[in-house]
């Protein structure tokens, strides 16, 4: 999306939020908090997509990576009785799933979409096969209230009174922007995704860069999965991720493969859902639940139709690198 539109839209939304806040303080804060919580896994998952595609690898398996990590994270936490350990198990599982994709898509030069589809099917199968009931988490995830900042009206309770995952997601987006555009790693990653031949000529190991980026990105998918099962749902159910990994891909495109853009897009998605839920709860609108469930997907299709042609993916995405 052209920056001009993005700025206008952002300012309009922020103005709308301030107006809403003046009219109804509590409800505005609760809608915004809901929206942020909804956006957390989307932000993290979109970052996975950005790292992979900036390196030239399509990751359609984010959904499966998240699902496996949510599964491993939850049962890890429940069995060890330690939330932090569970989260680490989730992240580790995500990295294993990342390495799985990297092996297929980079080392074996498999078709990348097929490799991703395989991850999704295997994840659905394994998590259903090994699923068992009767496990509970040892504790609920603590909230970290940041002193002083949390006392600012509107911004404070929404942004500075959250679980650790939320801060991690917001920091990841900012950090990834810095890493991608201001560091040598970022330059190498982008060159590998745009013009691997030239990157190779200048001495960058294309295959190794792609392999490690895809593997490490899997760790973020793991964090997103762990958030879903450990903090958001506090349980694991079959199909817990409910398509968020796919929505994240659309958010990545909508954010033009830029971490900050994707952060904005994810927050916009969250807000759309938060508003719809609140309006539904207040009985302002009466839409069948199924249509509320459709909303993020329809929004995705419409937004993609609008932005397509105005944003460009990394040039080498989807193509295995063959040395000349």
């Amino acid at each position, binding site marked *: 999306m052209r920056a001009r539109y993005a700025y206008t839209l952002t300012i309009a939304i922020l103005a709308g939020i301030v107006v809403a806040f003046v009219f109804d303080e509590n409800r505005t804060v609760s809608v915004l908090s809901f929206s942020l919580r909804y956006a957390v896994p989307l932000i993290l998952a979109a970052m996975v997509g950005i790292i992979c595609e900036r390196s030239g690898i*399509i990751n*359609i398996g984010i959904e499966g990576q998240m699902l496996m990590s949510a599964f491993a994270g939850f049962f890890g936490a429940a069995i060890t009785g330690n939330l932090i350990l569970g989260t680490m198990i989730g992240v580790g599982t995500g990295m294993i799933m990342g390495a799985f994709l990297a092996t*297929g898509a980079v080392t*074996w*030069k*498999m*078709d*990348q*979409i*097929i*490799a991703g*589809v*395989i991850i999704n*099917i*295997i994840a*659905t*199968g*394994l998590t*259903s*096969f090994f699923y068992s009931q009767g496990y509970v988490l040892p504790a609920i995830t603590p909230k970290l209230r940041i002193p002083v900042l949390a006392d600012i009206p509107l911004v404070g309770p929404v942004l500075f009174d959250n679980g650790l995952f939320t801060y991690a997601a917001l920091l990841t987006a900012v950090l990834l922007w810095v890493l991608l555009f201001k560091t040598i790693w970022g330059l190498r990653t982008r060159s590998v995704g745009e013009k691997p031949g030239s990157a190779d000529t200048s001495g960058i190991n294309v295959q190794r860069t792609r392999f490690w980026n895809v593997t490490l990105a899997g760790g973020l998918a793991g964090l997103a999965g762990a958030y879903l099962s450990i903090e958001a749902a506090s349980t694991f159910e079959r199909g817990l991720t409910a*398509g968020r990994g*796919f929505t994240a*891909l*659309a958010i990545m*495109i909508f954010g033009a493969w830029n971490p900050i853009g994707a952060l904005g897009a994810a927050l916009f998605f969250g807000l759309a859902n938060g508003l719809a839920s609140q309006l539904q709860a207040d009985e302002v609108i009466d839409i*069948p639940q*199924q*249509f509320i*469930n*459709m909303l993020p*997907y*329809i929004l*995705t*299709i419409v937004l*993609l*139709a609008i932005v*397509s*042609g105005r*944003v*460009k*993916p990394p040039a080498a*995405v*989807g*193509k*295995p690198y063959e040395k000349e």
Partner: protein
Amino acid sequence: MSVTDPAQTDLGYTDPNPRRETPWSRSQVIVTPVVSVLLALTVGGLLILIQGVNPLTAYWVLFSSALGDVDGLVTVMEKSTPLILTGLAFTVGLRTGLFNIGAQGQLLVGAIGAAWAGYNFQMPAIIHLPFAIAFGILCGAAWASIAGVLRAYRSVSEVITTIMLNAVAIALVDYLASKPLQEPDQPLTRTPPVADTAALPEFGVIPSGFVIALFVSLFFGWFLARTTQGFRFNTVGLNPSAANYAGIGVKKTIFLAMAVSGALAGMGGAVETLGITGRFEPTFNAGLGFDGITIALLARANPIATIPAALLVGTMRAGAASLQFQTGIEPEVVDVILALTLLFVAAPIVGRMLFRKRAMKQASFSSGWGGA
């Protein structure tokens, strides 16, 4: 339209350049899928072993319950029918360079469309049955066309839109079956049963839907190999810019292929509804769309080979219930085995192991998002 390197789109079914070595020889085309299935069964056997059951016993139950008697064989044919059609749906897309991940959604929409056409009208069977099937086909085609139009004319990746449309379809049919099309005076989320005039008959014990699916496979084998339109599909799939240069309307062809693909998936839903389930219930047809991908790749995008591939998957699906009943193994083990099969077929593992070719060219169908 970006250029797709012909070397990367080689699937082994057509060789755009006869002088170049074909990556899949005849023996590989048959041996590789067979070995892949055996490998997947071996790894799946380890999972079964972890659960404390002898894998050989489990597989005996799985296959003997499906193939051991007439009832079992009829179930296999019933399970295979929509699988042949969704496998064909993915195949037609693949041959045109499209990833139709949305067979699941198209099948659901086709199924509920056929159910509505089947219960809502009173006509003689000679008109009613074709009408109900055609309506299901039309619904599937229309649903896929959303992704087709966006891909052809707005360059939106069909991979994402079809996935999104799957989710929308699941919610939509659930709504339709719970409100406007719900069976009156029933608390269940389902449509009324289809009229007898719209139900697919059986030939002896053989379900006629299965026979229809076989004929459709043969038709598409002929269509893709021998007709002008089939040639257009293949050409666009192999090299869109060459197709464009040769005067083929690439956008139109992409749209058409997507609609045909959706029509096949919709037909799968229609045949399932009119022949087996007799009404639409949202829980009936879960997961059929993804099996289509496995089947199409096992068959290496060959419509005729789709039949044995679908029969294999159908056999495992048919036996899964007995497996759980007799050994306590979760039926999801079949999902894992099928995913592993897909992995072994799509990854160069088996090819390298068997044929020791260092640089086996891998089939690559994707060419990125958006502008691709």
